[in-house]
Every structure is written in C-alpha cells, then in structure tokens.
C-alpha cells in the first residue's frame, strides 16, 4: 500500500525507482581528489595507479577502486592512503566547544612573534619525532604542547591553530565525483582562467536560463574549456543534441568536459560545429526557400567534406554523415549507429589492446548533413548559451539568434557588465528579444558553527559575473505595425519593456 500520491485527478504514481547504490570509483574513471579542502587534482584511476599527495610522491590509490565516490581518505607519514571517517565533529563535539564563547582568555598578551620564539621545538625536533613515527594528529598535539602561547589562546584560536597545523602535517582528501558542479568549483579555485572565471552558481544559472533538459537541442558557444558543454550534456542525459559551436575553423578544447565521466550516450550527444557553417547553411536554406531538395543536399555535403578535410577530420566524418542520413528516417537509431561507427573507426586507429577501463573520449564534429539539418528553419535550436567573453555579444547575438526556434530562450555570460548592457540595448532597440534581463549572481558562503556563525572571509568580491537572458523574437514579428505608436513605445520603455 503506497503512501504516495492519491490526490484527486492525479494518476497513480509510477512504479517505485530501484534501490540506489553509491556510484563507485572504477578503473578508468576520473576522480577529483580534494586535498585538505584547498588543493584539487583530477586523477584518472588506473589499477596500481599512484598520485602525488602532499609531500608524498608515490601514494597508491588502490583503496579508491570499488569504493563509493565521496569517500574520505587520509595519508599517513609513510605515504599510505587509507579510508577515514568523513569529518571531525563540530556540533556534537561536546559542551566545551559550544561554550567556547564564554572563554575569558584573549589575545592581550599574545604577540605576533615573527622569530618563532613561541615554538620550543625546532625543525630537527620535528624531524626526529617523525622518524619515531609520530605524525598527523599526534605531531600537532606535540607542537601545541610545546608552544608558549597555545595555552593562552581562546578555544577558538586554539582550534584555528590546530587546524592550520593539521593541514600541514596530515593530508585528508575527499574523492569527489567530478560532477559539473565539482569540476566548476575546483577550476574556480585552482585555475580559474581555464574556465573564464565561471563560478558554479553562474553555471547553474546558464543551465536554467538555457532551458537545458532531456531532448533539448541547445547551441553552446563557449571558451571555458568545455565546462559548459559538459555540464549541458550531463543535464541532458544523452537525450537530444548538444551543439558546441565555435568560431574559427577548429573546435576549441573541450578537455574539461572529458573530466566529467560522461557516459557514451552523453558524450555522443555532443557535436562540434563552426558557427559560420551553421549560419551559412541557414542562409542556403533561406535562399532556396524549399524543404531541402536533393540536389541541394548533395552540394552541401560536397562542400562540407572539403571543409572537414581542412579541419583534419577525415574518416569518422564520412561515417557520421551516413549516420546522419539514416537518422532522417529514424532519429532514435542515430545514437546506436553513431556509437558503432565510432567504435569501428577507433578500432582501426587503436589496434593495440585497450587498457582496463578504456573509454572513448572522442567528441565528433558535426557532419555536413547534420549541420544542414540543424540549420533548417523547421528545426531551430531550443536555446543558445554564450560564454565567450572575448566575443562581442551584440554582433554574436545578431548572427546566432536567428538560428534559434522562435521564442527560444538564450543566456549570455560575461565577467563584465558593459558588453552585455550594450547587447541588451541593441536587442531592445531592434526588438529581437523580449524578457530581457541582465543579472549578476552574487554569492557568499557562511561558516555555520556552534555560536560562531559568520560570513566566510574570502578574497573574492562575491560576483559570479553577469548573465544576459531573454527570449528570441524572429524578424517578422518585430516591425512596428498598427497600434504600435510612439506613445506605446514610450509607455513600454518606461516600464523597462522590451520594445
């Protein structure tokens, strides 16, 4: 007897989902190792694989294999990695910690001793302790005991001291699943330039404003290393088509998308395409005005092949084109066909025996047939996500929006508001879009601990960049017509309307 649903008019709830187990780390998976909360490393798990963790060069990662993602580990002074309890308790640690606020000690007598005279042990003593096998927590306890100022500190300051020292003498790491959120956060902290400083909340906002979901067909133009393309592909679950549009002749790196352990269906749902080709294909469609007669399609495939060759995409391109043709008959079959074509192509290229956990990381470029199909006016992209701050958004939108289905949403990210403001003004004046919004995700983290909750001190300004969004209005629906006089325009303009 289910306790679910049962409201009037609603169909009975579907069968219960199966029992879920924790996704486990397997050979060939990418694992995001978060070390002491301030260092990140992407590791491709191999049998007998090792990693550099802290000061240890050759730490065996064998304990990770088969363990659930999200597990926590510690590395001891011998460089041995072993599973550990997740987090030391903060809230349930007992009354001492919680009553620490009533601590009367203060830092009136604690001076900033630059000469390290507060610490009685020197590095030789520490090395000796380590040789004796004292490491991690025990070593930090020893350090605290021989500190002249430790006892005078407040409980908070003591805790801070211990945490700081622990970070130095004990590596704790969490093996995170490289979800788009985790990958985005890691890059934002570690190498933000690689993802154009896109923060995870801004990424989430782009996914929402880009109406990304299963069966969508979004056009993504990004220079964030594949972060956005990968996140979009994951959110679509291998259903639909992600087109990674690029300027210039060759596709930019999508390496960050490859870190996300995408399944075959998800990876194969991505196709790269030069935006100029898409625009040209649309123009050809418009020029013919017909529904794609045969002569035309043959021509396009020819010209496209020439292009493909120039891009250095050879055999797979032909396979893909065939797949694309077949797909016109039955689109559902396309995924399977592509997968086979892909495998065949790669088997030829990789005659050697594949290592355990091998998986294809190949992202196809769109075949001319697919480009032609995508650019068809009857098709249209379901949304546009633009995160290429070096592109002028006004000009890019003027060219790319006509590739969208009418009313389709779009979202543009930039680290700076001005280009987006100018694009918004341009779109509003040309009535190419409605529902125009320029916003800035502003995020602040808080430390929440017993009687010591406060905004976390950070070095960032809180801004996650700027996002311009709206819904595309096709050209025929923009012109001033009857009833749309100056007065209405003024009225609309006043309310921030999108005329």
């Amino acid at each position, binding site marked *: 007897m289910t306790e*679910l649903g049962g409201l009037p008019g609603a169909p009975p709830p579907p069968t219960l989902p199966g029992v879920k187990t924790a996704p486990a780390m397997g050979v060939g998976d990418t694992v995001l190792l978060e070390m002491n909360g301030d260092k990140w490393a992407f590791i491709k798990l191999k049998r007998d694989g090792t990693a550099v963790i802290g000061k240890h060069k050759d730490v065996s990662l064998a304990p990770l294999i088969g363990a659930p993602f999200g597990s926590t580990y510690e590395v001891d002074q011998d460089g041995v990695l072993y599973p550990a309890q997740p987090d030391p308790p903060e809230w349930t640690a007992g009354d001492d910690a919680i009553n620490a606020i009533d601590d009367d000690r203060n830092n009136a007598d604690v001076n900033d001793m630059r000469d390290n005279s507060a610490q009685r042990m020197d590095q030789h003593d520490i090395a000796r302790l380590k040789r004796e096998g004292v490491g991690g927590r025990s070593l930090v306890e020893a350090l605290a005991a021989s500190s002249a100022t430790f006892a005078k500190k407040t409980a908070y300051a003591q805790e801070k001291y211990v945490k700081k020292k622990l970070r130095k003498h004990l590596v704790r790491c969490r093996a995170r699943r490289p979800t788009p959120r985790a990958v985005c956060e890691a890059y934002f902290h570690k190498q933000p330039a690689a993802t154009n400083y896109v923060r995870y*909340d801004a990424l989430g906002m782009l996914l929402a404003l880009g109406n990304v979901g299963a069966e969508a067909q979004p056009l993504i133009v990004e220079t964030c290393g594949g972060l956005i393309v990968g996140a979009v592909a994951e959110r679509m679950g291998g259903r639909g088509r992600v087109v990674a549009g690029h300027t210039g002749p060759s596709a930019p790196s999508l390496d960050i998308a490859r870190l996300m352990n995408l399944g075959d269906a998800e990876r194969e749902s991505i196709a790269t395409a030069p935006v100029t080709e898409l625009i040209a294909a649309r123009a050809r469609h418009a020029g013919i005005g017909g529904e794609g007669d045969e002569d035309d399609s043959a021509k396009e495939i020819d010209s496209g092949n020439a292009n493909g060759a120039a891009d250095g995409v050879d055999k797979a391109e032909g396979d893909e084109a065939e797949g694309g043709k077949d797909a016109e008959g039955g689109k559902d079959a396309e995924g399977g066909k592509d997968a086979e074509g892909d495998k065949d192509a790669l088997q030829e290229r990789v005659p050697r025996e594949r290592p355990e956990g091998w998986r294809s990381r190949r992202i196809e470029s769109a075949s001319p047939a697919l480009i032609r199909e995508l650019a068809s006016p009857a098709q249209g992209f379901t949304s546009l996500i633009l995160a290429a701050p070096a592109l002028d958004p006004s000009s890019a939108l003027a060219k790319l929006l006509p590739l969208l289905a009418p009313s389709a949403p779009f979202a543009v990210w930039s680290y700076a508001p001005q280009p987006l403001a100018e694009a918004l003004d341009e779109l509003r004046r040309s009535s190419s879009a409605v529902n125009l919004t320029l916003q800035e995700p*502003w995020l602040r983290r808080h430390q929440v601990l017993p009687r010591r909750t406060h905004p976390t001190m950070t070095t960032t300004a809180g801004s996650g960049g700027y996002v311009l969004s709206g819904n595309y209005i096709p050209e025929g629906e923009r012109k001033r017509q009857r009833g749309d006089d100056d007065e209405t325009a003024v009225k609309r303009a006043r309310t921030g309307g999108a005329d």
Partner: protein
Amino acid sequence: MATRIGHLLHRAPGASTPVPDDDDDGANPRGATDADAAPSTPPHGAGRTVQLGDLVVVYEGFNRQKAVTVTEKGCYQNRYGNFHHREWVGKPYGSKVYGKGDAGFVWLLAPTPELWTKVLPHRTQILYLPDISLVCHALELKPGSVVLESGTGSGSLTHSLIRAVAPTGHVYTFEFNRVRAEAASAEIVDHGLADFCTVTHRDIEANGFPGELEDRCDAAFLDLPGPWKCIPSVAKCLRPDGVVCSFSPCIEQVQRCCEALEANGFGDCQTVELLGREYDVEARELQRDLALAQPKLSSRWKREAKEKARRKRKHVDGGDGDGDGDGGGDVQLEPKPVVVAHPRQEAQHHTGYLTFARLSPLVTGEMIDAARAAGGGGTRRRGGGGYDEDELSE
C-alpha cells in the same frame, strides 16, 4: 520533426504524442477543451505553433506576463484590448498578436520553467531563478535522478526539478496543506508532467518521508520551518554521496539544521547566500554642455523618446545630425549616447540561506584497518595520522 518548443518540457523529435501523459487527459475535468486532440496535428511544426490546449505565456512587457491556456472560446483581456484565443491557433511561438480593433499587441511565448516561475499563481512564498538554478545544479541532478521535495508550496522549484530529472527520473514532492497539495497536483497533471512527478499530501516534519522511498533517492530539497526534524528520514532515503539542500530564511534554522546533518552522517556542509542582482539598462544621453541647465533625471525616458522622434522628423525633412545645434564649434557638445547599467533598486527575491550537505559513505574501523595493513605492508608504525585515536594506539 521539430517538436521541441511549445511545452514545458522538451520533446523528442517525432514523438507521436506531445507528452506521455496526454492519454489520461480525457478524464481530466480541467482539460477545458478539445485541446487534447493535439496528437492528431502533423508532427512537422507541431509544438512550434500555438495549439488549442497549449499553455502559452502572454508577454505584455517586462515583468508583465501571464499564463494562458488556449481554448476555443477563450479571450484574453488586458489594457491593450481583447485577444481571441482562436486567432492565436496556428501562429508560431514568438508571434506578436494584436487585439480586436486597433488596439495594442502582446507576444506569445512558449512556456519554460523560468517563465512559469514568473507567472504562476502564488499560493506561498516562492523560490526565484537564482536559488532555483543553484539548487538544481548543486543537487547534481540529471535525467534519471530521483529527488525529494518538501514542501511543494506553489510548485515554482518543482517544475525546474522535473525538467532536470525527466524523462527517466522522478520528483516526489510533499505538501502538508491539503488545499495546496491538491492545487499543485492538478497543475502537474494539467502540464502533462504527472509521469515525472508525484505530489503527496503529507507532513514531512511530523512523519518523515515515506519508508518506501528509503535508499531510492539521489537528492532532497527541504523548504520547511523545522528542517532538522526530518533529517534522519532524509539520511535513510538518500544513497551515499547523495546531496540534500535546505532553504531557510533564518540563520537559527540553519544552525539547527547543520547540527542535525552532522549527527545523521552528512558531511561537506556548506551554507551560502545567493542574490540575483538585476540591472536596469538605459541608453542615456549625457549632457556635456556646462552652460545648460540639466533636465530632471526622472523624465529621461519621455525626454529621450521625444528627442528621438524629433531627430527622426528632422532627418526626414532633410536635416542632418549636425543640424541640431547652431552649427560651428558646438559639435563636441552634442549629447553623447552611452549605455549604462545600474542595479535595480527594487528587487524581487526572498533572501534566505541555502545549506548543502552530502551523505558520507559509511566507513568502518575494519575498512580502515584493512587498508592500512595492505598499504603499509610490514612498515606500519605506531602513532600514524589516523583520525580515530583508538585505532592509532593499537
């Protein structure tokens, strides 16, 4: 082939029925019309054009839009005139449509969860785009995910959760107010989303989530006055490494929630505050001539529109851009249009804290011992850096 736009969810091209749920709609008393004939429309272009029974977002102007279900006899009325629904049928989404007589116009937009959030009937306070997008992203949802939500409220977040997990996942949403639960359930059915979402009338704080969902969920979202009361139940329902998010307006609620999360095996606890700061954008003509009095700031829109109209007339009359001034050296004193962006003063968001935590996989002492023995070989020494002190001293 292209049937992707025009419904709250994207549809596979060539899908024979708009949404899998449509078969059931005949029995639905709110189905209002013969709209459910939609499957008989030709697949090509269907969904791109407005059909009877469609949910359409009528866009009048910025933050002035309404949800309308297109019916045979329906008529949409606003200050720009009367719009008969039947005149919309067959028009592509994105069309501008005119009212009866020489009245004004509106645009017809295809619904999305984002637009729905802007037009939905408020039964409670709702979550807005910035929070919604962060929740869906940080809960790490994708098609196939199973997610819990309580309370359902006005269903603002619910629609975005459905989009993220459909068609293979499911949203189980719970609301303790019966009237609101029924209204939300009706909405989900009307929107053709019942295959991906089940609304249940239940007090989650008092009763926890139903036992039948234990171990079957990937994520949970809580918007409850006392979220800590149901954290043990959430811990039972989530798989290891599953994520829970709790939204609370008060920091005291957040603190109690964090305490409960820690006590129930959650880690990686993070509390954030997120605002979507919206900006107004204007093309202004900033005055450069210090000898002139400045116009009032408040009248800028009117003034600019008048100026524009005047310049346009001059243009038509054969004047040119320079003709505005007195000629001569005044050219550099011409107003220079600049696009300015400034934060909008009245913002529509309910600020609260979002707390995220992750269910830690279970680790036993034996697992730790085994790994250390295997990794350390014979060289294991006393006093390593283990977390568990007992384990260290053995």
